């Protein structure tokens, strides 16, 4: 093999690995990402049932109902629109009414959200950043937690 051929072999290897990577990234970014939406955005954009999304907002006051076994139901609100959520399993340690929460799952045909993951981070003043941002953008966010504690969990 000449120097040129050797170089060509390595360039071919690098280019093909890179091409494969770009291809995989493109597919993965198309198929696997999950959008984060507030209840209002869900309604406005008419998200179809079955599409996997993250729904974020505050747990509506007085909405938490425990069903039989581990069935729980609550509502996520951004103070303009509210969506009911059902979930089977253990709620996070700091799940409270009036606190920020993110649920991942999909809508059913009736516009009810079936969550398989519920996230509420481990701090009483914690608001998932996506929620805080979305609520701020909609003008319903009060800086209640600020100044008390800037250490995030």
């Amino acid at each position, binding site marked *: *093999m000449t*120097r040129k051929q*050797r170089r060509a*072999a*390595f360039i071919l*290897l*690098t280019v093909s*690995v*890179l091409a*494969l*990577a770009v291809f*995989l*990234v493109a*597919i*993965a*970014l198309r*198929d*696997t*990402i*999950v*959008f*984060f*939406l507030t209840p209002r955005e869900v309604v406005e954009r008419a998200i179809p049932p079955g599409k996997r999304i*993250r729904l974020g907002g505050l747990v509506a006051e007085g909405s938490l109902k*425990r069903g039989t*076994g*581990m069935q729980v139901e609550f509502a996520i609100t951004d103070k303009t629109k509210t969506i009911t959520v059902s979930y*089977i*399993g*253990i*709620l996070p*340690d*700091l799940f409270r009414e009036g606190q920020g929460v993110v649920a991942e799952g999909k809508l059913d045909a009736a516009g009810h959200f079936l969550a398989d993951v519920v996230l509420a*981070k*481990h*701090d*009483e003043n914690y608001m*998932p*950043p*996506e929620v805080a*941002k*979305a609520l701020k953008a909609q003008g319903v966010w009060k800086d209640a937690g600020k100044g008390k*504690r*800037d*250490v*995030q*969990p």
Partner: protein
Amino acid sequence: MIVELGHFSLVLALAVALVQMALPAWGARRGDRQLMAVAEPAALVQLSLVLFAFLALMHAYITSDFSVETVWANSHTAKPLIYKISGVWGNHEGSMLLWVLILALFGAAVALFGTNLPASLRATVLAVQAGIAVAFLLFIVLTSNPFVRIPPQPQGRGLNPILQDPALAFHPPFLYAGYVGLSIAFSFAVAALIEGRIDAAWARWVRPWTLAAWMCLTLGIAMGSWWAYYELGWGGWWFWDPVENASFMPWLAATALLHSALVMEKREALKVWTILLAILAFSLSLMGTFLVRSGVLTSVHAFAVDPKRGIFILTILVVLIGGALALYAWRAPQLQPGGLFAPISREGALVLNNVLLTTGCATVLVGTLYPLLLESITGAKISVGPPYFNLTFGLLMLPLLAAMPFGPYLGWKRGDLAAAAQRLFAAAIAALLAVVTTFAIMWRGPWLAPFGIALAVWIIVGAASEWATRVQLLTGQAGRVWHRARGLPRSAHGTMLAHLGIGLTLLGIVATSAWQSERVVAMRPGESTEIAGYVLTFRGVAPAQGPNYQEQVGLFAVTSSGSPVTELSPSKRLYDAPRQATTEAAIHAAIAGDLYVVLGDELKDGGWVVRLYFNPLVRLIWIGAVVMALGGGLSLSDRRLRVGAPRRARRAIPSSLFTE
């Protein structure tokens, strides 16, 4: 008083670092030995000053001096001593101080052990190292001063309870040692570019430092993952969280760097690439620090959300990385190209390793930064989760893992693939057997999983058989085997162990991802439930009092085929300060896997929600990481690689068998 002295000492350290940055670099350019000689004492003085500042802060924590803001905000008198100490770096200000302390430690180590480096190279390396120190000391002094006084407070606010944990007490120091250790490779690369000269000796100096950093990074990441596994109570060990990625990317780059430095050391090839990799590895460390500390990503690690700090770190990032890359673009073309090699050779295999590792690293980078990018451009908020990383990074690692056992069998310059394949016959048979037996035992579950197991077995047996061939374990006489094993360079044992460790980790990952069982059940006291052959009987929940928390402890009796195995007590804790709830999982570890129990919410009918997992072979993930780090340590102890000993690295063993 001690606090003020600490603050003063930190500012002095900044002044010393400025001197250490300027004078030796200038001296190296002018060939002035006296100016160059400033570097070593300056590095040692800088270390003493930063160490004093760090100890002063630690003293404030241990004595619970609540007139210091960071102590007040992060400590509490009722906290056990170890967490008072780990509280020093359990917050933004202190952790940056730890970062600089480790940086100064590495700088001083170069000054102490680098006595046989060419004087101008050593002076330039120490000057670059000091430049990094200046940037971060300025950052601390101007935006994140840990010594700020406030009116004395009666009591502190305490450390976040999920951080009050032994594994997490040592996770940051190890991770930082890894991040910052890569700064040495960076400084050497920049110095080589400034000097315009680079050779095999350069790689021999750089490799031990990179190896040490890589070991720390491996252990640090493993500790973080282990902590997440038992503390967060989800039974998961890796979440592809941006902060995890921030530590994983430097690890990938460091792994690539280790291998390319090997080529450079033995064959003087891949010089330009190795330099670039050294710059990139530390850049990724810096980016990790930026991502984690700036508050761009809000998570367990984002201690403070302060835009001023973010912009400051971003500036450091741009200046250091941009400067180094500009220097690279300017000087790298002038470096002499190195030796030739055929595509099928040890070098060729290591190039494949590098191409795949860096491409894999790039896909992780894209997945980590894409949501930030998309949000700043379109405003859409997305999350990129495990499916993305499994599809991109996971697939790219497959060829790397499959090719890994071939590497050590291929000769330098020109290798014989057929001969290597022949020697891997045993590994291939083992892998085949693994597929068959796995299908036979675990016929339920994903059909790809047995092939994953086979890949892991292929790597493990491949690594072990390469070693066995070299010591003639099966063909030689018993006495000779020991002799040969002793005669083998330690780095050869190290390579074997590190590759074996990868195989073990992979085995754990595949097994636990494919066959994890999870059950969520409601249980009343007296009821039993079954998972993976274990029967758990719920005995009830009792309150208990800890040093700084109250808890509700569940009690479960575990039996397996009728005979008692153990009792498990998962609990829910409520800490006093800060008032915060945590879930403590209870884990029973057996050879086959972990039984993992989490206590959930109390139900209205007196029952409790209980979450049970069985994670098969999950421990191998961390055991593999420890084995990898052990391999690194063994390599590091190799006479030829010892820090500061590269001069004695002439080929001591003539046999071609030992030319590792």
